[in-house]
């Protein structure tokens, strides 16, 4: 990703089960609400995947205690990163 407005953020996954099915669906739905390209990875060494892809997010299988990294590129990139980080920080509640 390059150019435009870019933003990055991260948050630790506190859920004992990690990024399991319901949180994965919530994260995907949230990401889809933004125009910016949004990507996530599990841990600093993980591969970046499209946060708007239900299959990619479900397959990430980020575990408890891992840090979820978020990056976005586009007009609402900062808002997208803030929203996803907030979702992880509130343990996917609501």
């Amino acid at each position: 990703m390059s150019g435009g407005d870019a933003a990055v953020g991260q948050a630790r996954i506190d859920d004992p089960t990690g990024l399991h099915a319901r949180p994965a669906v919530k994260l995907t739905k949230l990401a889809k609400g933004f125009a910016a390209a949004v990507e996530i990875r599990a841990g600093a060494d993980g591969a970046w995947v499209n946060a708007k892809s239900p299959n990619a997010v479900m397959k990430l299988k980020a575990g408890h205690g891992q840090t979820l990294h978020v990056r976005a590129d586009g007009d609402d990139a900062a808002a997208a990163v803030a929203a996803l980080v907030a979702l992880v920080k509130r343990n996917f509640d609501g």
Partner: protein
Amino acid sequence: MTDTVLPGNALPDNVAIVIVSHSPEVARGAADMVREMVGDEVRVAHCGGNPAGGLGTDVAAILAAIEAVYTPKGVAILVDLGGAETNSEMAVEMLPEDIRANVAICNAPIVEGAVMAATEAAGGSSLVEVRATAEEFRS
């Protein structure tokens, strides 16, 4: 048997989901998973069982389920085994041509496919995208 849920904030702009199982309990359970995991922005209809109340599928019930949630944006159908697919194909063939074009049977596991399809649909994706997401699913 057909059961349809049309929550107040379900958007006709989102592709709808129809779940067709041999078992009414499986169909209802899969629909419950979609509503609990994805929410109510996506309309979901489900049907299962034959007219005699046993395991099986019923073309008329499938047709009614499709018509209950139909939107020009599209309807993605998730099926379980054999007859669910062939009866769903028959139901789709009975639809008027202009409606039929907006209805797709997905080659995906019924429960997982329904959840993934609905997740894709909730973001306003097209029927082509919704179907692709369901069919790409691998646990």
